[in-house]
């Protein structure tokens, strides 16, 4: 088939995939059933970079979760980097918004495309030596984090403010219309609880930065920086899809400037760079370009990394990781570093978590939030449980259901209810019954364990010259799972007078010498 059919087919596929991923994003929420109906984190289960991270982490690989990623790698080996050209939502966004941003033709040095391989090599070396950085630059993680932390909260904020305004101020004609459409928005597009994340702005900045790189060069990110592109490029070097002519033609040379991925060069057609967008078969003035599927793969061009570059990136990764790992454990010193229930022990968790943000999107209580530096330098964007903002719902197992790499284990309800996130401790200087001799006990009311972990004792205390009979809360350690509802609901202003600390969390490796 020739242009424009393939090109249009490709564009249709891009748009459909993008819409499908957006739809899955909207489904990443509790919708009346304890088990999510759709594989909402599909984007990461087909992500070979996530699979690489999981493979290099300690513990089992997680075949059940990540076999689709291996399938994608295999398909890429057969057919080339079709994922980048046809499916990747970030690539589609760049293709779609590129025109708006303005596409530059600064044609940076062709050698820059090697950067992505060096990044991949460095990150792989780092992962081998104990520090996983794939998640930071995984394009799919970047895409979903931008949606989760920036665009979705902003959309909800704007939409809710508009609905609020027209609800409170009846404007003729407009208000009935807006109010009438509220139910549809509420049921299908708006989040049940308005989402809010502290890293909204930095996340947006990263996304916009990648977008602005289009001004330098079309698909700058994909061509020069994307580590997933590099991984898929390595897979596709001997793909069965072959392009003819196999290099730029002497009488035209248009491919040199037009190819969005710089795959056609003076000497070869680089399979590891070609995104299979099929544009060239359209714009070729002589209609020479033909893609054929042949069982005998032709020799691919060399990736031609420089030896010095390769060694440097390997060394960088291999050096940075142990140096970073040699720092004293942060999680062991910061009592407020809480992880979702079922999380792996911290070191393995950091190596397995792909920073996709799915758990933070799905969390029914809005309890999970991205870390900036709270979990150390390499913990950027990993999920933290912040009970003052939201608590872990006792009967909910959604975060484990969406985690694509198994960093948060899939627990059944009974297991989840036994998974200890931490333990609640009272701040007796502020807690009302302790500090001021006033009644309260909101924490006890909300405590969800069958036999309450927070109980109370009745005491007679002197408050000034008055003797009061008071119910004073107490914590029973063996019952507390650290869900944090007490901290969320504590009615004091500002910080809660009961806080969850990570003491005794289930995931902690017990020190055999202790």
């Amino acid at each position: 088939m020739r242009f424009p059919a393939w090109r249009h087919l490709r564009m249709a596929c891009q748009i459909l995939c993008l819409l499908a991923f957006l739809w899955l994003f909207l489904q990443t929420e509790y919708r009346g059933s304890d088990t999510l109906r759709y594989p909402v984190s599909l984007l990461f289960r087909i992500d070979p970079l996530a699979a690489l991270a999981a493979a290099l982490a300690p513990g089992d690989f997680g075949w059940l979760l990540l076999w689709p990623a291996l399938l994608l790698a295999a398909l890429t080996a057969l057919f080339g980097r079709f994922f980048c050209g046809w499916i990747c939502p970030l690539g589609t966004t760049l293709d779609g918004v590129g025109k708006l941003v303005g596409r530059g033709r600064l044609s940076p040095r062709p050698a820059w495309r090697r950067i992505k391989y060096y990044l991949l090599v460095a990150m792989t070396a780092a992962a081998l030596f104990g520090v996983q950085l794939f998640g930071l630059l995984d394009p799919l993680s970047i895409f979903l984090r931008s949606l989760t932390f920036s665009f979705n909260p902003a959309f909800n904020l704007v939409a809710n403010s508009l609905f609020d305004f027209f609800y409170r101020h009846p404007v003729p004609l407009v208000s009935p219309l807006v109010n009438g459409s509220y139910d549809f928005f509420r049921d299908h597009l708006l989040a049940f609880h308005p989402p809010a994340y502290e890293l909204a702005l930095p996340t947006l900045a990263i996304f916009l930065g990648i977008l602005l790189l289009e001004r330098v060069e079309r698909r700058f990110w994909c061509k020069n920086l994307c580590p997933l592109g590099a991984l898929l490029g390595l897979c596709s070097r001997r793909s069965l899809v072959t392009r003819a002519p196999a290099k730029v033609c002497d009488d035209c040379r248009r491919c040199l400037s037009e190819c969005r991925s710089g795959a056609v060069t003076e000497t070869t057609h680089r399979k590891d760079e070609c995104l299979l967008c099929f544009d060239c078969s359209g714009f070729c003035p002589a209609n020479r370009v033909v893609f054929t599927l042949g069982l005998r793969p032709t020799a691919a061009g060399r990736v031609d990394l420089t030896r010095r570059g390769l060694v440097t990136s390997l060394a960088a990764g291999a050096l940075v990781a142990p140096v970073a790992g040699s720092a004293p454990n942060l999680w062991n010193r910061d009592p407020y570093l809480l992880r979702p229930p079922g999380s792996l022990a911290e070191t393995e968790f950091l190596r397995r978590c792909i920073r996709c943000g799915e758990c933070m999107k799905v969390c029914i209580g809005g309890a999970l939030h991205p870390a900036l530096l709270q979990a150390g330098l390499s913990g950027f964007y990993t999920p933290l449980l912040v009970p003052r903002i939201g608590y872990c719902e006792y009967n909910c197992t959604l975060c484990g259901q969406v985690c694509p790499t198994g960093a948060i284990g899939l627990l059944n309800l009974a297991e989840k209810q036994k998974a200890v996130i931490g333990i609640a401790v009272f701040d007796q200087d502020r807690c009302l019954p302790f500090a001021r001799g006033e009644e309260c006990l909101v924490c006890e009311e909300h405590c969800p364990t069958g036999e309450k972990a927070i109980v109370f004792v009745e005491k007679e205390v002197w408050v000034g010259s008055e003797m009061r009979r008071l119910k004073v809360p107490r914590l029973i350690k063996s019952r507390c799972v650290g869900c944090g509802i007490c901290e969320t609901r504590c009615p004091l202003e500002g910080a809660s007078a009961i806080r969850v600390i990570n003491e005794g969390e289930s995931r902690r490796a017990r020190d055999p010498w202790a």
Partner: protein
Amino acid sequence: MARMDRREFVRRSLQVAAVSSAVGGVPLLDLLSFPARAAEVGGVKLAVRKGKDIPALVGETLGALGGMAIFVKRGETVVVKPNIGWDRTVEQGANTHPLVVRAVIEHCLEAGAKDVRVFDRTCNDPRRCYVQSGIQEAVEGLKSERVKIEHMDRRAYRELDIANGKDLTRWSFYQPALDADRFINLPVAKHHGISTLTLGMKNIMGVIGGNRGRLHQNIAESLADINSVVHSTLTLVDATRILTANGPQGGRLEDVRVLDTLIASADIVAADAYAATLFGHRPEEIATVAAGARRGLGSLDLSPGRMA
């Protein structure tokens, strides 16, 4: 509704007639349907019934008070407010029994209610509570266009002054609960830490906004305050099974006792007072109930003469 004697009835009728004729064709408020007030409340009946068949039990209990038609008139809007506070199943007894909710709504429909709305500001995630309690399914199962179960609309809270408020002088209330012609209060009887028991008066916390935990600092007077704003036309306490410990959230079947009992009255204090006795408490031991009586929301009187 208060029972009126003949003399009172005639007097009121004359008043209505006089005002009607004075104002002519202007549509009038129905003076007779003004909520029962403290002075009249003493004579209000209290119905307690037992039975295993919940729809029949609801019918019997309401029947003892003269049927739902006494409380809900044709064409009126009704709010039915069960306790849907917790992500707990029916057997765990932390929420009002869905069959009670459903039967009460059916009686409202039969009485000719134009519109019945069901909602609660929950403690756990609202979606989970609505589903897990079985109440959403039960209400939607009625398949009536006049009945709607809905989540709280965050736009619809209003700050109001509380006249004669003792602990709270101003608080945020859920407007749809105040706008309805009739408010039917359907609490489930449960153990509760700070207030010993949670019954009808505490169930009103489900239609207020704001930082509700604040009320715990003076729970009895606070509840009396908000109950002076949100008036329950009828309180029907679900004691088909009661939670005797680890309330109000519960979770252990060992703490649930099946009593197959319903208590109904237009007097919220009387209904709560009777419910307290099911737990072995004297009504005046429960500070919220005592405060309700002291503040004129109803009467603690459980004498045989009051029982319907």
